């Protein structure tokens, strides 16, 4: 059951993230956090030596980087990955209305999906940078196989996207802590039906109708 009536609080709970999705999110967040934390002293050299020796910082950055795609891949490909796969399809497929909503920066009407266009863009960006940072980071680690010009390009891209990641992750966390109902769902899995009616109306309708829509079970 995805829709559960809880009579005590008179709040109808709608499942937004299953256990696999929550675990994948937090594993991914932990890796991103460790990578960003270690990136700062690696980039701004004068910070290091204060907390940990540089060699250790490098090793943490390297291994977390190599592990970065694992949460996404494991949660998508396993038999437990139905929820993940459905949401990937949702993130991929946009209506004209959603495109227009993004173009007008939220000023045009939107019958929102499970994720609004901004949230979808965040997910796509994170997916892309996992691949980009893994590839460019590997080029920097195993640089001997690449020409100096390509190493230089890889350094450039790795650094430029690192800046973008900081901006996007700070934005993501800011949005999360200012939207408590949505935030709760990444801890406990559910949102209230009232919240869904306002912020994810199309998804709620599909979930309720159970007409073969992705989240109906």
């Amino acid at each position, binding site marked *: 059951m995805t829709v559960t009536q809880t009579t005590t609080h008179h709040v109808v709970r709608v499942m937004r993230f299953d256990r696999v999705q929550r675990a994948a999110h937090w594993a991914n967040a932990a890796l991103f956090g460790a990578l960003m934390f270690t990136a700062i002293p*690696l*980039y701004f*050299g*004068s910070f*290091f*030596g204060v907390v*940990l*020796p*540089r*060699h*250790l910082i490098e090793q943490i950055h390297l291994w977390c980087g190599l592990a970065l795609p694992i949460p996404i891949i494991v949660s998508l490909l396993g038999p437990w990955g139905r929820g993940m796969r459905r949401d*990937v399809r949702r*993130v*991929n*497929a*946009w*209506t*004209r*209305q*959603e*495109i227009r909503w993004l173009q007008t920066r939220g000023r045009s009407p939107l*019958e929102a999906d499970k994720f609004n266009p901004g949230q*979808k*863009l965040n*997910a*796509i*960006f994170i*997916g*892309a*940078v996992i*691949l*980009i940072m893994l*590839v*460019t980071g590997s*080029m*920097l680690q195993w*640089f*001997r196989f690449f*020409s*100096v*010009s*390509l*190493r*230089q*390009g*890889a*350094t*450039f*891209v*790795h*650094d*430029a*996207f*690192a*800046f973008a990641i900081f901006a996007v992750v700070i934005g993501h966390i800011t949005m999360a802590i200012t939207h408590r109902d949505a935030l709760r769902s990444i801890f406990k899995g559910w949102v209230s039906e009232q919240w869904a009616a306002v912020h994810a109306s199309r998804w709620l309708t599909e979930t309720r109708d159970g007409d073969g829509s992705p989240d109906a079970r």
Partner: protein
Amino acid sequence: MLRTTSVDLVSAQEPTKRVPVGRRVFLGVTGLAALGVAFGGSIQNFLGNAFGSGLGGLLPGGDRFRIYSITGEYPKIKDSDYRLKVSGLVHHPKTFTLDDLKAMPVTSFTKTFQCVTGWRVPDVAWEGVLLSDIMDAVGIRDEAVALTFESYDRSDTESLTIDQARLSDVIVAYRMLGAPVTTEHGGPVRLYVAPMFGYKSLKWLSAIRVVDRVQPGFWEQNGYPVNGWLDGTTGPTNPDPSLT
């Protein structure tokens, strides 16, 4: 499909028609990154050459030093405490103070610092003493083949053949970027080997020993070429005259 006006009106603002925006944005962003890998180096070089290193310094990743240290620490050496000990196969072993070095003929030039891992800083002003002048000051013996360099960090070591050390852009540097070499850049005195990758330019230079064979340094023992010419060749001498 029914071809009636009403249906067409609906499909004109069809709310359920889906566009694979996710795939397009994903491919667009990764494609941009691939272009960046392929051409980022050239773009940086172009900007660096066209506008000097100032603009590049503002771009993420462009024209900035990454500070590396083997030990994770910077040896802090006061100028007055600094000593460069030159020994081995020499006629007159000598220990130089910073003032001794500054009293010698000054060599200065502007050259790119290129790291083997791909970052570079163009137009760095360097100033110091030719390694060649230091060798002449102590007088190297006939059986001398190479130099071994040691660092105040007690971990890093480097090597150069006598011929490499005689090149006109290989110096013991005490000024860099228009100021005394800072601690994080290897100050007060570091090596700068312009025609080779940055790992050859040992920081916090403490000693030079003149020896009878090349002894691979710290990075060489960890897989880097002993002769790290910027053009990628690894022979003892480099055929490209533009590098020297």
